[in-house]
């Protein structure tokens, strides 16, 4: 029996997670990942990878919780296995600090991380310019390790990889029975009428192995995330900014803000700088449409627009994408390609 040919566009964390879930769940599918960039050159690779959701305005909260919980549980099992080091997944504790007391004191994901609580007075003294804070333990998932780990898992179930830049989904549909679009900020060009825009982020890698806890300012522009071989400090949130080059002023601003939060950074050596474009969108797009190609209806499942929450929601949105695919193959079994 001929297998259903599925192609996943994009090899970042969303693309590979989706590809793995489909390949492992649907043995009657042969899955190919096609992308212009692979690890270590994807947006995911530079991200610190701290699992920390933001609330999207138009998606029911229980769906957002499900997306996060699914990802958290999946990564937690890896963190607690011998594969943790290979996959680059581990627990990370720290502080989420606010310059002003927020209205929403308990985010929707508070019960999904570990030990969520307000910071004590003694802890707040560590941050004299902030008035409120939350402490919790979450996970960190470093894509420089995790993406190759996912790719191995993908190939182990027969997944195929193609290095090619996709510019036309209709053309792609000529050769496949289903398309999963995980092209991140690339969807801006790939999909018509697009609401994806870049949110430029710059960050520095510093050598500061004595830092173990993360610190994130709730404004999202100052963070310190200790990693395996370096500490990620950042950041910026520049909407509609496509520049991939490092901006020296941004670096200076990052160093200054982060050193104010963590004075020991002043003696840390900067090892490198990196820029990535978050696939910004009002809400992640996880839904299915059909492409009409040569008399066939080819399901096109979108799974993009995760903003700065790609890693955080990767496994959960991948499951939704898998279910959308499974449902569409059931509703409209693929017809023979010419």
């Amino acid at each position, binding site marked *: 029996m001929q297998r259903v040919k599925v192609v996943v566009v994009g090899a970042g964390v969303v693309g590979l997670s989706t590809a793995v879930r489909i390949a492992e769940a649907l043995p009657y599918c042969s899955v190919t990942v096609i992308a212009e960039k692979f690890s270590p050159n994807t947006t995911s690779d530079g991200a610190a990878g701290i699992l920390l959701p933001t609330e999207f305005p138009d998606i029911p909260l229980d769906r957002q919780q499900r997306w996060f919980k699914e990802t958290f549980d999946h990564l*937690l099992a890896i*963190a*607690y*296995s*011998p*594969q*943790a*080091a*290979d996959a*680059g*997944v*581990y*627990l*990370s*504790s720290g502080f989420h600090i606010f310059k002003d007391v927020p209205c929403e004191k308990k985010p929707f994901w508070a019960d999904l991380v*570990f*030990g969520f*609580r307000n*910071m*004590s007075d*003694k*802890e707040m003294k*560590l941050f004299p310019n902030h008035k409120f804070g939350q*402490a919790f*333990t979450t996970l960190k998932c470093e894509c420089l390790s995790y993406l190759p780990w996912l790719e191995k898992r993908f190939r182990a179930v027969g997944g195929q990889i193609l290095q090619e830049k996709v510019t036309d989904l209709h053309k792609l549909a000529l050769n496949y029975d289903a398309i999963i679009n995980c092209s991140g900020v690339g969807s801006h060009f790939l999909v018509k009428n697009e609401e994806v825009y870049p949110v430029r982020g710059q960050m520095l890698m510093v050598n500061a*192995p*004595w*830092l*173990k*806890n993360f610190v994130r300012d709730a404004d999202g522009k100052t963070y310190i995330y*200790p990693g*395996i*071989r370096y500490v990620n400090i950042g950041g910026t949130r520049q909407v509609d900014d496509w520049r991939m080059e490092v901006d020296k002023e941004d670096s200076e601003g990052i160093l200054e803000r982060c050193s104010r939060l963590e*004075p*020991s950074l*002043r*003696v840390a050596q900067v090892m490198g700088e990196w820029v990535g474009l978050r696939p910004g969108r009002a809400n992640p797009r996880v839904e299915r449409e059909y492409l009409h190609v040569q008399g066939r209806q080819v399901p096109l499942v979108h799974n993009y627009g995760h903003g700065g929450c790609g890693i955080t929601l990767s496994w959960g949105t991948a499951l939704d994408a898998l279910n959308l695919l499974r449902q569409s193959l059931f509703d409209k079994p693929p017809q023979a390609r010419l």
Partner: protein
Amino acid sequence: MKVCIIGAGVIGLSTAQSIYQHFHSRVTPLTIEVYADVFTPLTTSDGAAGLWQPYLYDKGNVQETKWNKETFDYLLSFLSSPDSVKMGIFLQSGYILCTETVPDPSYKDAVLGFRQLTKRELDMFPGYSYGWFNTTLMIEGKTYLPWLMDWLKQRNVKFHQRKIGSFKELADTGADVVINCSGVRSGDLQLDPELKPARGQIIKVDAPWIKHWITTNNFSSSGNSTYIIPGSRLVSVGGVFQVGNWNLQNSFVDHKRIWEDACKLEPSLQHAQIVGDWTGLRPARSKVRLERETIRSGSHAFEVIHNYGHGGFGLTIHRGCAEEAARLLGQILEQKSLLALSKSSL
């Protein structure tokens, strides 16, 4: 006034520091000398993981709880200073695991964010049914000791590498006060049946993805509790607590047991690279000996201040004890009418 300190581990060096801070401007001249047969990086303090964590319960030794807290607050005050990295001080969070429900530890108010572990967290640690989470300080001996030595050298404290045979030996060279910070080998200077070595062995591992310390308390086993403590470069994995064992050689049997237990507790260790083993002798005692003693030698008498027996919590308690030792020295100085009423001009 000549003060001679025996021992250059964290206790000896920090005691020298406290004495300098309290008395250098009130006693002129004040000579401080440190005598030791080993210096950093070969002292017991150098090999210790450096986790600020007292034993669970102080067994009524409330002084020790007070000294522990004093040390924590003192170290915490340096965290935002430009010297924190040079001192080897940083924050780290972690898990204290127990095999049964037990009362809160003596130090719960000293550390940051102390709380019980939730059931979901305990699920990560099969075999442990109760425990706590908190954020505490790390104080790495192999960084802190060189920092202390530099601090002291800059203030003209002299160091002598030599093994001292008796307190009298130093008194004979002109010491007015001898401070005994000789740790586990204090018995060589004065018999103390309460002081015993508690041998510990640790495995140093390269596992930089581990960002939390884990200490365990197995109330059914005999004090050999597993712990995993990440440092600034390597992770220290232990442990054993062998009372009466003087053997400074690494034991393969201990290594195997420590490693197996640690990998059960933290499966991600299985793929970590082992760098080496280290063995040290904790100066274990029912309680810290921190007191004065007048020693008579013929018609001559001199003062000794004992500051030893800090078990596995030397780094944890050092500052509180150093300050207390300085206070005892103050008593001696007052009795000898040596203290200037106001600060003398320098």
